[in-house]
């Protein structure tokens, strides 16, 4: 072979391999069809989920992940939706806001999903909101704060609104004649705005908020906050957080010798609360869904059948009872797949179908969505539960 020929060989090979690469792998890294509107009406239905599987939200995210996996399997065994298989893609946001954003971007840009479920907590859910709105992908969050859905066209949620939870707490406080409340809240998105809501709801009931303290979900020492709460001399205290931190805060509260009654939020609706708080949990009152007190429900409760079935399935699959958070994921899946059954995967149609959800019986309550209400639950969805001997019991006046 001549020298000149050989010299041409290498660039030619490089050019050829580039050309090959060009045609070979397609342009998946350039977004395929842009945005979510290209979601295909053929092939498997893609549902993405972004959950707090590791990090401070793991107590929430792990049961949610379990639930979704279980439900997807059940659905596909039953033949999918309209004969189309359902592909579930779960991503871990590591309990971080930017993790949630990265995962969402991937779901939208690479996986081209039809529906997104998540995140487990408010902060990451808020981080996802502008992304799914820009890409117009219907999304159902399983976190609580109303800010996730307020004024959004594309985002829904299944956890009870903080507003209705606080209504239940304040109703109970009013009935007991408390006039001064103190709040110790989660410093992240879940706890933001809570003080304002209490002040507003309290003004109608003659209740004032005398002190507010906050803690990081990763905190283990609460002495300073609880010292200030003790000094506030309120009639009762609201601890608003998720496990384990809310449980540890409860323990610190009791250790400091404060004996005022405590309300906790629906963020402690799992057994992990008892592990973190220990005996200090006794006597805590918290509004939550019916799941954790299912065995105490009357037989004519409209949710009982659904809840019992879920508990049975979940316990069989995972050897442990489901938490309320598992229930939120169940509800998101239920609402989402029902809407896909009715409207298919066209984003606009799917969103309209979710918005039209009416009287769907779920784990956390009975859902009725409207364009104005993307939460779907009323105060009826909540019961008051009392912590007693390491478990939640139905508590009514």
């Amino acid at each position, binding site marked *: 072979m001549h020298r000149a020929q050989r010299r041409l060989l290498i660039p030619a090979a490089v050019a050829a391999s*580039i050309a090959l*690469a060009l045609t070979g792998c397609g342009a*998946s890294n350039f977004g395929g069809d842009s945005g979510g509107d290209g979601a295909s009406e053929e092939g498997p239905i893609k549902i993405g989920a972004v959950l707090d599987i590791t990090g401070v939200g793991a107590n929430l995210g792990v049961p949610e992940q379990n639930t979704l996996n279980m439900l997807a399997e059940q659905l596909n065994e039953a033949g999918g939706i309209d004969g189309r298989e359902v592909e579930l893609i779960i991503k871990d946001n590591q309990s971080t806001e930017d993790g949630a954003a990265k995962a969402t*971007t991937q779901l939208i840009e690479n996986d081209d999903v039809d529906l997104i479920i998540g995140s487990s907590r408010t*902060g990451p859910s808020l981080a996802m909101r502008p992304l799914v709105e820009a890409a117009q992908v219907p999304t159902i969050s399983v976190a609580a704060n109303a800010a996730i859905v307020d004024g959004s066209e594309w985002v829904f949620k299944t956890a009870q609104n903080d507003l209705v939870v606080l209504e239940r707490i304040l109703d109970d406080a009013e009935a007991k004649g408390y006039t001064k409340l103190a709040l110790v809240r989660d410093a992240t*998105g879940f706890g933001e705005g809570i003080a304002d809501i209490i002040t507003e709801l309290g003004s109608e009931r003659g209740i004032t908020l005398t002190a507010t303290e906050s803690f990081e979900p990763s905190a283990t020492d609460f002495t300073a906050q609880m010292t200030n709460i003790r000094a506030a001399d309120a009639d009762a205290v609201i601890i608003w957080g998720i496990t384990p931190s809310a449980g540890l805060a409860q323990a610190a509260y009791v250790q400091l010798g404060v004996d005022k009654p405590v309300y906790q939020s629906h963020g402690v609706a799992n057994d992990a609360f008892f592990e973190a708080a220990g005996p200090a949990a006794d006597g805590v009152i918290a509004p939550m869904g019916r799941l954790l007190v299912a065995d105490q429900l009357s037989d004519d409760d409209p949710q009982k059948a659904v809840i019992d079935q879920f508990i049975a399935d979940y316990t069989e699959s995972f050897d442990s009872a489901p938490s309320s958070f598992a229930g939120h994921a169940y509800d998101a899946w239920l609402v989402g797949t029902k809407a896909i059954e009715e409207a298919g995967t066209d984003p606009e149609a799917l969103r309209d179908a979710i918005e039209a959800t009416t009287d769907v019986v779920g784990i956390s309550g009975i859902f009725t969505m409207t364009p104005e209400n993307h939460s779907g639950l009323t105060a009826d969805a909540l019961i008051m539960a009392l912590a007693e001997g390491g478990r939640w019991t139905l508590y009514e006046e």
Partner: protein
Amino acid sequence: MSYLNKAALRSKTGFWPNNRGTIIGVALLAVVILIVPFTASSSMMNIAVFSMIFALPAIGLSLLMGLAGQVSLGQAAFFAIGAYTHAILLQKFEMPGLVAAVGGVVAAMLAALLVGLPMLRLRGHYLALATLGLGFIVMIAVREWEFTGRTTGIYGYGRPEVFGIPIDNNGLFFWFVAPFVLLGLVLALNLTRSRAGRALSAVNDSELAAESLGVNTYALRVKVFTLSAGFAGLGGVFYAYQVQIVSPQVAEFHVSVELLLMVVIGGLGSVWGAIAGAFIVELLSEGLRDLIPAIIPGATGEVQLIGYGLVLILVIILLPGGLYQVVKTAWAAITSRIGARRADAAAPAGAAALPGGGADDGTAEAPTRAFGGLPGEGAASAPVDGTADGDAVGDGGHEASAPVPTVSVPVPAGAPILEVRGLTKRYGGVVAVDEVTLTVPAGQIMGLIGPNGAGKTTCFNMITGAIAPTSGTVSFLGSEIQGRKPHVGAEAGLTRTFQNLQVFSSTDVVGNVYMGRYRKGRAGILRGMLGLQGREQYRHEEIAREILETMQLGDVSGLAAGDLPFGRQRMMEVCRALASEPALLLLDEPMAGLSGREREMLATLLRRLRDAGLTIVLVEHDVAQVMALADTVAVLDDGVLIAHGDPESVRNDPAVIVAYLGTDAEEAEAELKELEEHA
């Protein structure tokens, strides 16, 4: 041989178009960048995107650690400041994308400048842990501040279009960020080879020596720290752009650890290594997240940390140079094999460059020939023949005709060039130097002698600024310099050598002497990064080489400085000091460790330098040498100046004799005589 030297020289002087290795490397990387979006799987693409984003702060950190020798455990702080500023400018002030991006970088640099000014006065552990503290402060501040969106952060600002193109996928974004990484790479590479870069690596070898040659260490470190933060800020801007949310997690400690890991894996101080390290760490992070739960059931959370920890430890213990070292060793092996094959055909020209290579052909022993290696150029450039009047002492024979290095003569001979008044140094209750007052006239050689522990070196250290005097003044060319850092005196023309050699071991002999030229250079960091100082550096290296030839060190100019025998290292230090064209040269025991021939040569040289107008002060143990060489002699004993005058009168001063040799003056005198004769 001279051709080979010049080629080597050019590759080091850093105007990057001259550097084939860099061009080829950058071109290859550019091609890879072009292809990757077409071939990579979507998960690989994701890794590629984030490794590009993190390569920027990693390059910055690599400059800081490699050049400035500082560990920063808070690089994430500047990354976060860049990201937050970008996001806030976009979201709250609705600035155009470009403005927000520039704002992010500027904010990071400003923050670094502000905290760097006080913090970079710290050393070692303190600086590292202060940067770590800074990282925590920034993380907590953005988490607690309403303006930065507290725990949730800033989001909902979207991605600005670039030249009208919406960047809405990984492929386009990769092409958007990659040119910046390439540009950053080239700028950083240029910087490491520039005047400032070489000064900083000299500082890492010996801060004292570098400062004594005029390097303002502190100012350079602040600049590099700020620059490094600029890289981090730019990375933060791209991160904010791509992820579309900036939350406190970007400032967290583990981000700083990841960045550190990138630099360590790549090889401390290697800019290429930082980019490779960024890719490897991203890959490792993703890979371990999948791998470890597969091996250990039930493992959740930040399991990739186990890999980080292991890699950090293993790389430091087994492979301190990182990937860069591996590649360099491999490359050297390959090229030497190829070189050997070529050398079979050609003449064995390179042999003289090998360590100890003088043995086979004897070129090392032929100074005139070595000097002739640069015919014509020597006369045209700097070395001026200061001994044109020909009154050189004749005993140097063959050196007599050689030119001496240029010196500066700011004041006429005899005028005071250095005045020391009441110089005192106390350590606790111990007085090391007590009220020394001394005037050194220009154009003379002064010997400073005294028994061990008399305070001679302490005096030197106070005069040059290495330590601050407890009281007293040092006035050089009319301005007081006591208590100032050594570079202050050095910039004015005062330089020194060291009793305990302070060799820049990371560079070769020319590189050492080149550092002597530092004070004659101009180019700063910016010019260095842009590669606009090749000509200047080339000229200075040429001069350094010529000085080495004059001092008969031309044959070893390409060797690592640490490989030279002790005596030649000492001579090299003298060359280095002379390269700065000093007005006053302080030599701390220059004769120690020299061979007889070398001593003779040095003595001749010093006389000729004196005749050219240089003022020299030398501390010396060898009393005979001093007496023979010096125009005046000062004697220190126990920190007190006990005698000062011409050699003859000092020699006969009874106090000196007692100080030197004990109580019996006559016996002492006899011994002294004997010593002198012996020498």
